């Protein structure tokens, strides 16, 4: 077996050194009743060529985004990732290192995480960010838990414009952590009076910007109302590239930002791994979940980095920790940091403009189609269309013609007939003129 260096002769020598006759002697503590003869019922070892053949066969059954006109978003976006990103994250010193608990051997990881924290704070307009969480949805649930701790309250208000998966994760955590949710019905791009739901038990109001239907709103007033009531405003961002064009949550008075960072540096990956971003204000830093990298000096007075404020964390505090999180999304955070470093100020703004331009062009073309209505007043790179017929069969029909047209909202809410005609369409910088032409033509035909 190519990954196992011990030879039969090594094994014999080592058993002799240990003073046992066979490997079975080292398993003597396993109860006899639990011991089995022979091998488990699975195939035997395979060489690289054979394994690769099997995976190619599975991969060939899927339709990759890059092979077709592609307009699917819903919190996961297809962007062009510069070649340098994947090259650098595959350096073994990054790929095959552990969590940086030994700072003298991990200054590389620690420095990029410090850079990552800085980038996330800058993008969101917040004061401080952590070293990543699993994904946007779990970051959102952690934001609610943190708001509960910081305010010593136990009720969160969720906007109807929040991504349904994010809402579902919050509901799961709420059930078991024992807090209450006041969740609004899924909105169809209209405004909601969230302030009406705030009471003396409300720890936070959770909104998404742009929301699940793509609408962009100013939450400054809501932030003020939250603060007057002693509650926090949590702003979720599922498309981080939007912050190259849209006013950041920090400038609207957000207290916590929970975001998905997949768009920078990371592939679609069928939904994971992605990277959760988490930012807040300095005054809440000791309530934060997850790892934090801090600047310090070494014994020679030189600047260096360490994991810090770990008294919040499970390996020190055990059942009193702010979160049970341990492993997070280190390498995905690295990909994010490298991609954003390559973009820089100019490139990031340009990327955002290209996304917005592609979406505006797509919307203009599709809203002209008979019976099709653009729901949004505003949007960044994703918007909702109301079709004259249910959206799911249309998406399926277009997929049959090699066009991935978007997401029928009914996929999230099959029980809500009033949402069945809604289609979410995302267009990023990867959408070409030809893609948009084919989407328009395909949709026109499918609607006849």
């Amino acid at each position: 077996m190519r990954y196992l260096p011990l030879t039969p002769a090594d094994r014999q020598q080592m058993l002799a050194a240990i003073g046992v006759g066979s490997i079975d002697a080292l398993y003597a503590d396993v109860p006899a009743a639990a011991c089995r003869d022979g091998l488990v019922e699975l195939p035997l070892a395979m060489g690289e060529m054979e394994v690769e053949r099997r995976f190619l066969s599975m991969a060939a059954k899927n339709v990759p985004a890059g092979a077709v006109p592609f307009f699917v978003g819903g919190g996961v976006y297809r962007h062009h990732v510069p070649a340098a990103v994947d090259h650098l994250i595959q350096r073994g010193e990054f790929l095959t290192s552990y969590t940086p608990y030994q700072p003298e051997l991990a200054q590389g990881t620690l420095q990029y995480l410090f850079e990552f924290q800085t980038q996330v704070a800058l993008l969101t307009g917040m004061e401080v960010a952590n070293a990543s969480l699993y994904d946007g949805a779990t970051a959102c649930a952690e934001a609610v838990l943190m708001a509960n701790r910081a305010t010593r309250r136990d009720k969160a208000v969720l906007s109807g414009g929040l991504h349904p998966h994010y809402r579902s994760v919050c509901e799961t955590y709420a059930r078991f952590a024992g807090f209450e949710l006041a969740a609004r019905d899924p909105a169809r791009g209209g405004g909601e009076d969230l302030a009406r739901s705030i009471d003396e038990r409300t720890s936070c109001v959770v909104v998404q910007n742009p929301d699940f239907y793509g609408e962009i709103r100013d939450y400054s007033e809501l932030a003020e109302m939250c603060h007057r009531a002693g509650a926090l405003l949590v702003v979720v961002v599922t498309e981080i590239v939007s912050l190259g064009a849209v006013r950041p949550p920090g400038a609207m008075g957000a207290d916590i930002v929970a975001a998905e960072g997949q768009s920078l540096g990371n592939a679609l990956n069928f939904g994971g791994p992605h990277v959760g971003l988490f930012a807040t204000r300095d005054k809440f830093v000791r309530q934060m979940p997850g790892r934090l990298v801090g600047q310090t000096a070494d014994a020679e007075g030189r600047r260096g980095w360490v994991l810090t404020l770990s008294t919040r964390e499970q390996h020190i505090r055990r059942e009193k920790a702010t979160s049970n999180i341990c492993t997070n999304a280190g390498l995905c955070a690295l990909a994010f940091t490298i991609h954003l470093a390559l973009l820089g100020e100019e490139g990031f703004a340009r990327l955002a403009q290209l996304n917005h331009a592609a979406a505006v062009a797509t919307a203009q073309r599709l809203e002209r189609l008979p019976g099709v209505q653009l729901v949004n007043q505003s949007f960044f790179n994703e918007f909702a269309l109301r079709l004259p017929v249910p959206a799911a069969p249309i998406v399926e029909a277009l997929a049959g013609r090699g066009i991935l047209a978007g997401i029928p909202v009914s996929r999230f809410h099959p029980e809500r007939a009033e949402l069945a005609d809604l289609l979410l369409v995302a267009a990023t910088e990867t959408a070409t003129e030809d893609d948009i032409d084919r989407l328009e033509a395909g949709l026109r035909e499918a609607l006849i």
Partner: protein
Amino acid sequence: MNEWSQALRARAGAGSPQGPDTYSGNRALQIEEPLLFEQDGPGRCGVDLPEPTPFRSRLGGLERGEPVGLPGLSEPQIVRHFTRLSQKNYAIDSGLYPLGSCTMKHNPRLNEKLARLPGLADIHPLQPVSTVPGALELIDTLAHWLKVLTGLPAVALSPAAGAHGELCGIMTIRAALEARGERRSRILVPESAHGTNPATAAACGYAVEAIPANERGRVDLAALQAKLGPDVAALMLTNPNTCGLFESEILDIAAAVHAAGAFFYCDGANFNAIVGRVRPADLGIDCMHINLHKTFSTPHGGGGPGSGPVALAAALAPFAPLPWVVHGENGLELVEHAEGAAGQALGRLKGYHGQMGMFVRALAYMMSHGADGLKQVAEDAVLNANYLRVRLADALTQSFPGSCMHEVLFDDRFLKDTGVTTLDFAKALIDEGYHPMTMYFPLVVHGALLIEPTETESKESLDQFAAVLVELARQAQAGGAEAFRAAPRFTPRRRLDETGAARKPVLRWRPEPVQRNAAE
């Protein structure tokens, strides 16, 4: 040399015997590297993107007003920056990484290649299910392998890491108890458990009670039985435990837990010791998370991403979180809502369908090894740990006598009266070119040193490592405390001030206010 290190040098005083002894502050291959933000060249950019054709903005008047503040760098600068950073890291690729209960084994590159196939990486979780049958097949195949290896009939795949898998397992247990009308309030966790176990139990609304270890480093069965009662929801046990020992009374433990009407949760962090050889179901385990980034070699990546599928007994399976991949009338189906057979399913624990990129790598690893190779993995891991144990028997002090599983626990008795601590000893190991073992964990012995070599180390590698440890122990006992306290000396940074970092946290870069140079 950047401004920061210049300032520090000025403060330390020129010619300080402690300071860097080169003009640049570099030490040959160890090159000082400023932050990205300190290399800003306005107008520079590492990408070439076209200008959009003019269009009417539809941002609703909510344009970003201020610049973000990102630095501008070109591609060569960025490649050099991250290459230099990478050279300040230790990694499995560079050497033995003996972190106990972390299973730092070789990460095969085939797995990286396969995870990047466009048909697996460039697919969207919300594109029509009809366009991703290969993805469902892969998930189902991985689930099948995990079910056979654990002997348990179901597996929840969405958890994003080990601790997330624990959350999934304990939530599932609570849901199953509630479905039979029981509200139990306590979870029992051995003292030697990883910190995530009590943190998870608390996060799910349970009171946590510690179970002491006996003098053999195993769960004290009598103490466990005394704590069991009708209000106990589960026992969370790591097996083999974090002392590197198999819980020899595990069948009695399981029987006692089940007799109390509780569930038996196993932390699968140490599955590597028994994979392919012992099935957790045969040990009476109801629920076990599996760290794909440990046993099945998906890269740790400097702290993630991980993946923590949870294998479930039949009594727990109906409550597994969404989504499910099931065999339906027309082949594999993706169940995204709590309906039909999934009517009792927990909601979601994570967005979308789990860590697909990690599933690809783990399945490639499993298929490469096969049933025979996986069993050999466990046996070689145990053999390597025991070989180190006997090689170190005279120099270090083993905490619990006798053979171990895939990791071996020592404590600091061998450092008694030397003035050298476990931490000093570990830092000296760094200068010898090794990543330290897990230190001060588990908490059940004093100054713990937990060594897990894994099966991917050769005998020669173990011999060399053992020789270094024996020599360091000799030096410590020969009165070398001063040198140990000064270690490490050859790393890019010496020991770092962790207390200072926590007292005045600096968690991000900020632009320096313009200051007059003191030398002018």
